[in-house]
């Protein structure tokens, strides 16, 4: 992509985000559609996020164990895996899974609505389609990704506990004491806060790409594809920024 096209796209996307803040918090509020979207984005993504978090928690524990045994540090496994899951793995896995599932579906759905004139029909029906379609989806993604991440944390830790007990015996109390005793508020806070930004980025890019789709069915495919690629990339960039900011504030 040429630099000029990149900056044009960036400016358009910034304008789209600005419109979200201008229009999103003024009546009429679309509460019912927001709830529908929370259900679609949050609840319906839970199995995917849950399974991937479980597998990652288990795999990480089983992979780490031989090395930790070599150093005589098996008691550190819960802390190491717990910190990794809570600080990085669960937010990133959740962000990527939601980006793949929800980002593409938002891009395709809005793109299809755009090319088949459904968005125009909505406007003619006395509805602000930006509020009804875009604001609700961005808000739902922003709210649901942190909740999904917390659930992914819990599921990943449970998988870690199972992994430890596959090759040894550790009580739940000891396992939890190990993890909670080594976690500080300053370590958890940035991990939670960044997931709001992940959710916002997924919703924003999916909606932007879909809402501005053109060129018929080809445009729908392009919207869905670019929504996933761009939001996945942005999740990593935001993670990098989050690490930089939390390091600067000593929250690491």
């Amino acid at each position, binding site marked *: 992509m040429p630099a000029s096209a990149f900056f044009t796209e960036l400016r358009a996307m910034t304008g789209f985000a600005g419109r979200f803040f201008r229009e999103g918090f003024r009546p009429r509020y679309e509460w019912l559609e927001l709830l529908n979207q929370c259900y679609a984005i949050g609840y319906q993504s839970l199995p995917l996020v849950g399974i991937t978090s479980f597998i990652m928690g288990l795999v990480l524990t089983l992979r780490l164990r031989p090395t930790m045994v070599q150093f005589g540090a098996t008691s550190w496994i819960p802390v190491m895996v717990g910190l990794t899951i809570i600080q990085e793995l669960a937010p990133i896995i959740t962000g990527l899974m939601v980006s793949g599932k929800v980002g593409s579906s938002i891009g395709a759905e809005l793109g299809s609505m755009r090319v*088949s*004139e459904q968005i125009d029909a*909505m406007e003619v*029906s*006395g509805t602000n389609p930006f509020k009804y379609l875009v604001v609700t989806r961005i808000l739902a993604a922003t709210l649901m990704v942190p909740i999904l991440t917390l659930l992914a944390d819990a599921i990943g830790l449970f998988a870690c506990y199972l992994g430890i007990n596959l090759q040894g015996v550790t009580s739940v109390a000891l396992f939890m004491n190990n993890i909670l005793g080594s976690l500080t508020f300053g370590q958890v806070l940035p991990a939670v806060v960044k997931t709001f930004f992940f959710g916002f980025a997924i919703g924003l890019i999916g909606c932007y790409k879909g809402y501005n789709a053109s060129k018929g069915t080809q445009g729908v495919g392009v919207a869905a594809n670019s929504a996933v690629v761009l939001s996945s990339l942005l999740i990593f960039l935001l993670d990098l920024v989050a690490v930089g900011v939390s390091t600067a504030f000593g929250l690491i």
Partner: protein
Amino acid sequence: METATTSAPAPAPPAPAAEVVLTVDKISKSFGDNHVLKDFSLTLRRGENVVVLGKSGSGKSVLIKCIIGLLTPDAGTITVLGQHVATLDHVALDALRAKVGFLFQSNALYDSMTVRENLLFPLRRHWLADHQGQEDQLVRQALDDVGLPQTIDQLPAELSGGQRKRIALARTLIVPPEIILYDEPTTGLDPVTAREIDQLIRHVQQKYHASSLIISHDMNCVRLTSDRVILLSEGRSYAEGTYTELLASTDPTVHTFFE
């Protein structure tokens, strides 16, 4: 084989003194270097069916999107039911749109909603039903008007092209419109279904006493639905008259459409 004379007799056009409900005054619209509309004007009177006839890409759809406020003309004014569209804020524009129905060329039915939900959508957005019983009654009445009450719980994907067009018309009628804008209502339909849609347009005109602006290049549709025809050519109003008058025209451009 059916001939052109088998159509239902068209109702008499409204008296010239009937109230003007829509005025398009010298509007122009360009997309880059493509000048789609150039000083185009028309008037629509209460109870009248006006067909805007033109080649594909001649700016017909752009015209009705300007009328409903989906596009803004570069110059000229559009007055709908006494209100200048360009000067309305979104609240006033929504109120005006409640009185204007729009049948999209692609039908624009919401894929994820059933027929019932598609019909309820404009009803609920305009706050026109007080309770669920009234909503159900209005939905059933609109479906009865288009002859498809049995499709109420089906999804648009489960319907045929003609059924989708009828449901889109029912959605247009559920908030009783004073003006209905039809964008290529028979495009993509087989001749029999297209004829049924044409008759439905006439039926709606008689039942709701609505004025209709119909965009089409289907000459059967023009013949069956029009009280008056405006030929749009190169962005301008090239010729105007009844179907019969234009049919008798010796002008080569007009003749091209009617031969």
